């Protein structure tokens, strides 16, 4: 039941009694009107009786006056007769005018009037004329006739009065009946309406009560569902492997799941209501500068954010963890930010593993070259050892001098190779100027034997010394890697071309300004890399070399180039006529070195 239906019921419950009372009032009015009509009729009867009595009295007066005149012949006695005679027609008329007379009564009245006229004409006027003439008035016949006529009149008047009284009695009875019927009617009507209102109201109230009960049930079910869903959410948050912290819009901690409590070292109870930056203390791993709090950053950008790389979290006990995290605004249905949720995890082990992989790959680059390097060292050493043997056994001074020169030459080669080898390991804390031409030449020297074994021809175009600021050992690792890849791709009879070009400062397609720097290109005429493989090349552990490869070379190379603020791009062609791959490494002359890499 909705509010509209409920209001409908309220209206019905209000209107029904009003309508019922109106009906009752109507019925009462109709009954009272009937009773009033009867009362009018009773009053008519009363008037009729009074009028008839008046006429009767006038007739008595008339006869008495006539008798007095008859006896005395004095006209003064005749005065009542004259008065009565004068007013009788009007009184008759008044009687006949009274409403509510039935036909019989009208007929009786007409009879009475006729009889009175007859009496007057046949007796009274005759008698008066005789008296006036001074004649004899003791005529028995005349007097007897007059008496008979008057008796008749009196009898009729009495009848009329009697009839009117009877009529009145009947009407009074009828009034009584009406009043009783009205009372009974009212009683039954009131009873009926009362029952009707009672039943109706009861029915409506039942509906309301049912709806109320349903609402209560729905509410309780909703509350249960809400509780369940909250419970589920709580369990999810508690079981999730990442730390989750929610804050209100001012950055005060509201909730921390167990992982978050463990990683920060703060119990939920202690942390409640404290500013996030107190609980979640983060700083940059390299610079050790405190980082902007996620709350401030989310508010500033008003969107989901991933936090900076190299984020370290300080545990309550002071230990430091590498973490990866993200933060997002919590929005209500209107889209207003009502809080911030922070998700983070401990990546210390991940970082250690990654560092170990990178270190491992560095060794692997050197390791892959170890055999050829040993070979390169072995060859001159063999010559030197043979020369020493010759010098010790019967050599003339001239010959010895020649042998010593040869030995020296061979040792210079060994030194060159071992220096190139050491370059792979030499670490520097800050970027130093690196001559790329010299570096590439050294790498090519170191790899000469490898090319020979692979049957690959290497050509280089290294026109002038080009110097960039870099970490030499790491760059050497990148180029060794890329050149090895190219030589292996080119295969027996293949070719590898290594070149350096200077690139002036310019803007790229998007208008981004690019620094001046060097582009090192390493091209091979191998089979090329299929398109489906290209996107995976820079992913760790992806290798096309089976057991021979670690799958880390390009991944690490890209990391190093990014760290140098440079780019590494790869273009490949698998067509029959122009197959091959070109890897281009751009290195800015004075890069902003990005210590963390990517």
């Amino acid at each position, binding site marked *: 039941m909705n509010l509209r239906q409920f209001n409908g019921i309220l209206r019905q419950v209000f209107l029904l009694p009003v309508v019922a009372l109106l009906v009752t009032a109507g019925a009462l009015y109709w009954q009272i009107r009937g009773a009033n009509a009867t009362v009018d009729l009773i009053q008519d009867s009363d008037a009729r009786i009074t009028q008839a009595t008046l006429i009767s009295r006038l007739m008595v007066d008339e006869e008495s006056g006539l008798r007095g005149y008859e006896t005395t012949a004095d006209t003064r006695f005749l005065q009542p007769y004259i008065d009565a005679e004068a007013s009788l027609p009007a009184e008759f008329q008044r009687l006949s005018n009274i409403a509510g007379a039935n036909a019989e009564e009208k007929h009786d009245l007409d009879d009475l009037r006729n009889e009175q006229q007859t009496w007057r004409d046949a007796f009274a006027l005759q008698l008066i004329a005789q008296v006036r003439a001074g004649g004899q008035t003791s005529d028995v016949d005349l007097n007897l006739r007059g008496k008979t006529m008057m008796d008749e009149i009196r009898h009729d008047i009495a009848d009329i009065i009697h009839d009117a009284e009877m009529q009145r009695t009947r009407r009074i009875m009828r009034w009584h009946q009406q009043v009783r019927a009205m009372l009974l009617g009212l009683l039954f009507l009131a009873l009926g309406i009362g029952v009707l209102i009672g039943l109706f109201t009861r029915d409506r109230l039942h509906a309301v009560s049912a709806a109320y009960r349903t609402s209560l049930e729905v509410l309780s079910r909703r509350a249960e569902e809400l509780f369940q869903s909250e419970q589920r959410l709580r369990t999810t948050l508690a079981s999730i492997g990442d730390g989750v912290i929610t804050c209100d819009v001012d950055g005060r901690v509201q909730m921390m799941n167990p992982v978050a409590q463990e990683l920060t070292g703060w119990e939920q109870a202690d942390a409640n209501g404290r500013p996030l930056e107190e609980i979640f203390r983060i700083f940059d791993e390299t610079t050790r500068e405190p980082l902007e709090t996620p709350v401030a950053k989310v508010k500033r950008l008003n969107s989901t954010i991933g936090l900076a790389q190299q984020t370290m979290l300080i545990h309550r006990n002071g230990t430091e963890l590498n973490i990866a995290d993200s933060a997002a605004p919590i929005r209500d249905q209107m889209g207003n930010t009502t809080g911030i949720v922070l998700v983070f995890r401990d990546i210390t082990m991940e970082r250690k593993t990654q560092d170990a992989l990178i270190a491992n790959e560095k060794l692997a680059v050197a390791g892959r070259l170890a055999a050829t390097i*040993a070979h390169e060292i*072995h*060859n001159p050493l*063999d010559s030197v*050892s*043979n020369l020493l043997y010759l010098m010790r*056994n019967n050599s003339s001074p001239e010959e010895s001098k020649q*042998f010593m020169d*040869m030995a020296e030459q061979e040792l210079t080669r060994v030194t060159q190779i071992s220096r190139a080898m050491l370059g792979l390991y030499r670490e520097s804390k800050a970027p130093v100027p690196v001559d790329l031409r010299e570096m590439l030449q050294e790498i090519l020297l170191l790899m000469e034997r490898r090319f020979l074994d692979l049957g690959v021809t290497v050509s280089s175009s290294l026109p002038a010394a080009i110097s960039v600021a870099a970490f030499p050992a790491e760059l050497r690792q990148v180029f060794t890697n890329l050149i090895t890849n190219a030589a292996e791709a080119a295969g027996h009879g293949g070719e590898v071309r290594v070149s350096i070009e200077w690139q002036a400062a310019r803007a790229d397609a998007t208008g981004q300004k690019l620094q001046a720097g060097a582009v090192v290109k390493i091209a091979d005429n191998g089979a090329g890399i299929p398109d489906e493989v290209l996107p995976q090349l820079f992913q760790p552990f992806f290798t096309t070399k089976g057991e021979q490869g670690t799958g880390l070379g390009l991944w690490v190379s890209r990391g190093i180039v990014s760290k140098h603020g440079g780019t590494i791009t790869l273009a490949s062609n698998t067509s029959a006529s122009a197959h091959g791959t070109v890897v281009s490494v751009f290195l800015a002359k004075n890069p902003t070195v990005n210590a963390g890499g990517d």
Partner: protein
Amino acid sequence: MEQESHLVLCVDDELVGLQVRRILLERAGYRVVTAQDGSSGLEIFSSEPVEAVILDYSMPGMHGGEVATRMRQIKPAVPILLLSAYIGLPLEVTSLVDLYMTKGEGAPLLLQKLGSLLEPVNAS
């Protein structure tokens, strides 16, 4: 001495190493012919009465394994000493030759091993 000395073919792409080895062997009483790659080595092997071969493994164009295979096809009886700077060459390569030794083991050992390869010739 001249007539009894053996003719030895040395094949190596390392010029200095080759020269030094030649001097060493000549001092030890051998006659020496040299080649700097596999194909010219095979030419000399076919045309000259070579009695022993000292063969390098890693060379441009054709490696020591291939050269040894061809030599076996041409003159199976001529002993071959494989002398490489690599340690641990695969068995399919080392099984082709009579002897395998690594560079840098020293001149006396080389002369001794070469001598042992040529002894059966002396005896005959």
